[in-house]
């Protein structure tokens, strides 16, 4: 997906006149130019976390305004964003959808990766338990996402269920423009093999999720 720089940052670089902006969600003093300037002066590269992480793509820019991105008026734009995200999904390269649920459990447990104190060469975790209940055995789970207990038992393993689950993990914004869930495949957090393991954790009848 095309990465766009904050409009205001671009304007600052070009030194052009400010475009007419509606007052929008943000009050006086927090217009695009002031905000871009604050960001620029307030952050620095550290380790693998570089300043380019503050350059938003169109999904992030849209979802950073809770008023403009919600409600019926934003429905068409949300749908466009979902379509664009769905188009980024890379389907399994070899036609197999599921790996090993035991590996999937390890990935779901791990929250490591991508902070400035992490190294780029270590595999990232999926952060899944931070927000979801997944297996009954793990009581230390978050609640930001829905419970996934019994996920495969209720949905089965039809082609549609496999595709929907894969698309959700690869790019969560493909079905919900401003989902709180990261886009694991699209943003390079998890690789294809790791996503297959998570698929197995959710859908394999032998997985504790479906017991």
């Amino acid at each position: 997906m095309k990465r766009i720089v904050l409009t205001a940052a671009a304007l600052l670089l070009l030194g052009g006149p400010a475009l007419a902006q509606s007052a929008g969600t943000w009050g006086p003093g927090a217009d695009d130019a002031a905000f871009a300037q604050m960001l620029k002066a307030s952050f620095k590269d550290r380790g693998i976390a570089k300043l380019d992480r503050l350059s938003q793509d169109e999904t992030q820019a849209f979802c950073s305004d809770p008023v403009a991105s919600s409600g019926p008026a934003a429905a068409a734009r949300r749908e466009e964003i979902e379509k664009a995200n769905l188009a980024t999904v890379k389907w399994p390269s070899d036609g197999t959808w599921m790996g090993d649920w035991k590996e999937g459990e390890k990935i779901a447990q791990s929250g490591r990766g991508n902070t400035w104190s992490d190294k780029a060469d270590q595999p990232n975790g999926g952060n899944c338990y931070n927000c979801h209940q997944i297996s009954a055995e793990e009581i230390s789970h978050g609640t930001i996402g829905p419970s996934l207990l019994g996920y495969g038992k209720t949905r089965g393993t039809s082609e549609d269920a496999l595709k929907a689950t894969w698309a959700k993990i690869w790019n969560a914004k493909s079905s919900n423009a401003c989902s709180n869930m990261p886009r694991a495949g699209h943003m390079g957090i998890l690789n294809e093999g790791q996503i297959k393991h998570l698929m197995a954790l959710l859908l394999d009848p032998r997985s504790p999720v479906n017991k």
Partner: protein
Amino acid sequence: MDRVSMGLAAFLAAAAAAATAAYAQQKDKAQEGIEAYREALQDGNPAELFEATGEELWKTPAGPKNASLEGCDLGLGAGVVKGAYAQLPRYFKDTDKVQDLESRLLTCISTLQGKDTKPYIDSAFGTPPKEEMNALAAFLSGQAKGTPIDVTPKHPKEQAMYELGKRMFYFQGGPYDFACATCHGQEGQRIRMQDLPYIPGNTGAAAGWSSWPAYRVSAGQMWSMQWRLNDCFRQQRFPEPVYASDATIALSMYMAATASGATMKTPGIKR
């Protein structure tokens, strides 16, 4: 410290006991264990040691000007520390800036003591000389304990800082698309077993703002609000915020103003 490790042992025992019980019971017991642990922590906060160090740093002449910080104006007049922390961030005429406690301290370290503040800004948290900031923050926050948070943006720069902070709160970026709002924008949610304060509401903002700086038992460290925010951004997978930068002050203004009216409980204590 002994009481703290006993509390930890009690917590671990409760958690271990809970692990043998049935699922529903297990969950309740773990939750109870955590609550009991949190309660036990309130009894004897090692932050007192940092407050004492901070008081000494405040009162001892230092720097090229061999001056103490006692003449520092934290917003209520030179040298007034009682309750001052509960009214920060605020606009300061002499710097023409909105400042939080730590950025204001940097101003005083520079103007009163004549020290170069760059080492304070650039050094890592918990190492010299940044650790002095934590001690000073612990001391000064303690001087506001029990007083109501009173932060209402009035000056145009305070109002702008509040709006910038609100916008920062919702700003998504990085490989995980995270904003502060991802975790702190809905009521009643948890990460793992950790309750998340809902920052856009008075109760949630107060739960956060009134309890930092805090002593973190698991890390054995005293954390100022700047340190707390720094680690939020680390977990958000953002680049590092510059110490006492405007983005951190803006977020602080947004939180403090939203928390206004609640009682300051600083320095706090956390797991």
